[in-house]
């Protein structure tokens, strides 16, 4: 076989040609995704979507390219201006400052708890791996029993709670609740991103 390199390559290929079988879970996943998309239907205007080959002269294609370029430039400028207007309050960081692994866009979120007899209030949640040791999640007392902290929270759905005096778990009274019979201690939910902060 050393004298027949082609035969050897074919043996390698034969090995690689062995069947690979996926289970029905894969099919279900594809069909779930496909069903969630807009259905195809018999609409006359879909004929326009079918690809056609059109032959144009170099001059016409050059002019068309120049027009498209100009349109793209102005559209890009408009979109950039729109984004700048919506950017207030956004903090873009590459990594989670708490040391966790949640890269992505963050938004400033203020957490407020009224706890007149508390000596210490912290915010813990999945955005800081339930670890309250970082200073940025320790609330400051503003007076009159009002505690608050503003932290940069990644976009997404999060669960969190206040911890008062290192021992008392308190759900955020102003936030949506999450049923938490797993550990018997209360949590709140926050959805960050999508234009508004829903809390």
């Amino acid at each position, binding site marked *: 076989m050393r004298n027949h390199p082609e035969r050897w390559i074919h043996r390698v290929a034969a090995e690689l040609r062995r069947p690979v079988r996926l289970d029905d*879970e894969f099919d279900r996943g594809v069909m779930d995704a496909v069903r*969630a998309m807009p259905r195809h239907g018999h609409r006359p205007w879909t004929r326009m979507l079918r690809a056609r080959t059109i032959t144009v002269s170099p001059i016409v294609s050059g002019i068309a390219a120049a027009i498209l370029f100009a349109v793209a430039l102005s559209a890009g400028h408009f979109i950039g201006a729109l984004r700048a207007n919506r950017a207030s309050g956004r903090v873009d960081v590459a990594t989670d400052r708490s040391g966790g692994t949640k890269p992505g866009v963050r938004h400033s979120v203020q957490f407020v708890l009224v706890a007149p007899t508390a000596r210490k209030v912290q915010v813990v949640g999945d955005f800081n791996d*339930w*670890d309250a040791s970082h200073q940025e999640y320790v609330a400051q007392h503003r007076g009159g029993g009002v505690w608050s902290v503003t932290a940069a929270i990644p976009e*997404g759905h999060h669960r969190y709670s206040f911890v008062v005096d290192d021992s008392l778990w308190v759900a955020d009274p102003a936030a949506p609740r999450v049923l938490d019979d797993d*550990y018997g201690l209360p949590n709140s939910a926050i959805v960050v991103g*999508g*234009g508004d902060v*829903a809390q």
Partner: protein
Amino acid sequence: MSRSLRATVVLLGLSCGGQLVAWRVAPAQRGSDARLARLDSTTRLVVAAVVDSARRTRVPTEPLIDKALEGARKGADGTRIVSAVRGLYAELRSARAALGTGAATDEITAGANALHAGMPMRTLTQLRSVSQHAGRAKVTLPLTVYTDLIARKVPSAVASDVVLSLARAGLRDGDYAMFQRNVRLDIENGADAATAAQTRARGATLRNVGR
């Protein structure tokens, strides 16, 4: 077959078999998350195995790790942590199946919470369909509102109807926040939870007519 060749084949078989067995027994130890070091070794192994399964079935893994870390922080024992993580894994799988594989992680997480709170699977699927027709891509907020309503003792059927009606009306993010706040305040002021939810939903959907 010569003795030495036989021995070579047997040794090769044992080492390959051993590697396969080691791989199957301890997939959890390959590349497991460093944060799980907070757990005791047995719990860590089991949780890492669940996370590994989730990765293979393309279910978000971060919520599972968070659930384990939450348990550690709250002083739960290993059995309770494992039970919570396994339960969440099942709920994440169901949520992903109901919402479709294009669903974002936050939708799947919120969906798992909603299923845990008692939302039927068909309602979850319906919510996706209704939201898309209303021109809203994501269902994270209506799912969060549903879970909150259940936590405030609104019956499941009422909560489902309310959330579907809000989704049908194409509510914006701020409208969901306002709806949740209003219902909460009404209940805190002594209103019946179901009545508060239904009344505020009617108001919110009316405001959205013609938008």
